[in-house]
């Protein structure tokens, strides 16, 4: 896998009750209607809903994510206005391993599968992600190749926020964009520390882990012999 390791699932999404005080609450008064551009044609399942409930649903989707915590509803709307809705048919790839990471995705409905090729060339399913999950959030602040392939298991509705559009907010010194980066820094640094702890654990007590690595090496040798 590549150095760019941003396609793994985010931490479980916090419930609305967990949102910080003063943050966006979808039960607030009816909001102004944000412009939600559609990409790839109209989605009929959305068009039958009222526009207001659709807007609330999208605001709820964004507002519940840890990286948008602390944003007030106007700020959530600013971010939504820079995102694009992307209907994805079952089996279609969202992106492929090795693609340039240039956007964050938020799954509104449906499920996606995260797969990656192992060093032995095997296709490994890493995760199945559903509604409310963010994929590839590090792409908002950095490029590099995607470390996994993500494709729709069924029909999905997904929002895409590109780094280019997010950078426009950053360049304008938009406070919402900077709140997102600070939240992202907290989430990603926590994950980095978990990674470090996982690595350290192996070397601090080698006797506990040697069997695991011996097993992996034996499996690899067995596969090579078969090949």
């Amino acid at each position, binding site marked *: 896998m590549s150095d760019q390791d941003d396609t793994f699932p985010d931490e479980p999404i916090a419930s609305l009750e967990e949102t910080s005080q003063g943050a966006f609450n979808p039960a607030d008064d009816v909001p102004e209607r944000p412009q939600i551009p559609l990409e790839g044609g109209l989605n009929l399942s959305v068009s039958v809903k009222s526009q207001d409930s659709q807007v609330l649903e999208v605001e709820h989707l964004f507002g519940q994510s840890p990286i948008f915590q602390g944003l007030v509803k106007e700020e959530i709307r600013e971010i939504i206005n820079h995102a694009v809705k992307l209907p994805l048919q079952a089996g279609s790839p969202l992106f492929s391993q090795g693609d340039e990471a240039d956007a964050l995705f938020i799954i509104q409905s449906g499920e996606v599968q995260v797969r990656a090729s192992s060093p032995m060339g095997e296709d490994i399913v890493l995760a199945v992600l559903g509604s409310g999950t963010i994929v590839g959030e590090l792409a908002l*602040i950095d490029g590099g190749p995607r470390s996994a392939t993500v494709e729709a298991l069924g029909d999905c509705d997904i929002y895409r926020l590109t780094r280019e559009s997010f950078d426009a907010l950053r360049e304008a010194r938009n406070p919402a964009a900077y709140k997102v980066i600070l939240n992202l820094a907290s989430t990603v*640094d926590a994950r980095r520390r978990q990674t470090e702890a*996982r690595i350290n654990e192996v*070397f601090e007590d080698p006797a506990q882990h040697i069997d695991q690595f011996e097993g992996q090496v034996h499996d690899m040798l067995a596969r090579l012999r078969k090949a």
Partner: protein
Amino acid sequence: MVVEQEKIIALLRQSAFFQDWEQADLETLCANCARKVFNVGEALWTAGEPGDGAFILLSGKIERTQLVRPDGQRSEHYDSPGDLVSLSTLVQPWEHTSSGTPLERCEVLELKREKFMEMFERDEVSAFRIVDAIATNLVEEMRDSNRRLHKVFGQPAETLRMLRRRMRENEG
């Protein structure tokens, strides 16, 4: 020796990071920092302790040391005015994973997390620019962690060899 704010700003402007900042933003930053002097032997921060802020070097030289697996002990030197260290502790009161010590008498600006968050909540451009630096550092650190994660778990034969060697050393 006390360095006046104008001198501090002139020092900061020597660095690529601060050189294009507006004067007012540099003044805001300075107003929210405490100027401190550390002598050789006095740690700026120590691994394992909770961090509560970042440092901006004005003069002297700081060594940052960290044990990183499986590479071993890593040491980085900061010796240019405007160098930023320990930035991640502005985000959360994480425990330091490294130690920072002066290799020679050094003068720094200390920015406490509480002050930084106040600046951030006031939408100060200086706070936003520091967030930009935090993001850049974080990406580099994440890449480094992922590289080592893949080295350890993606190359089991090499990891097995290192673990066996380590066990022999422990037994010896």
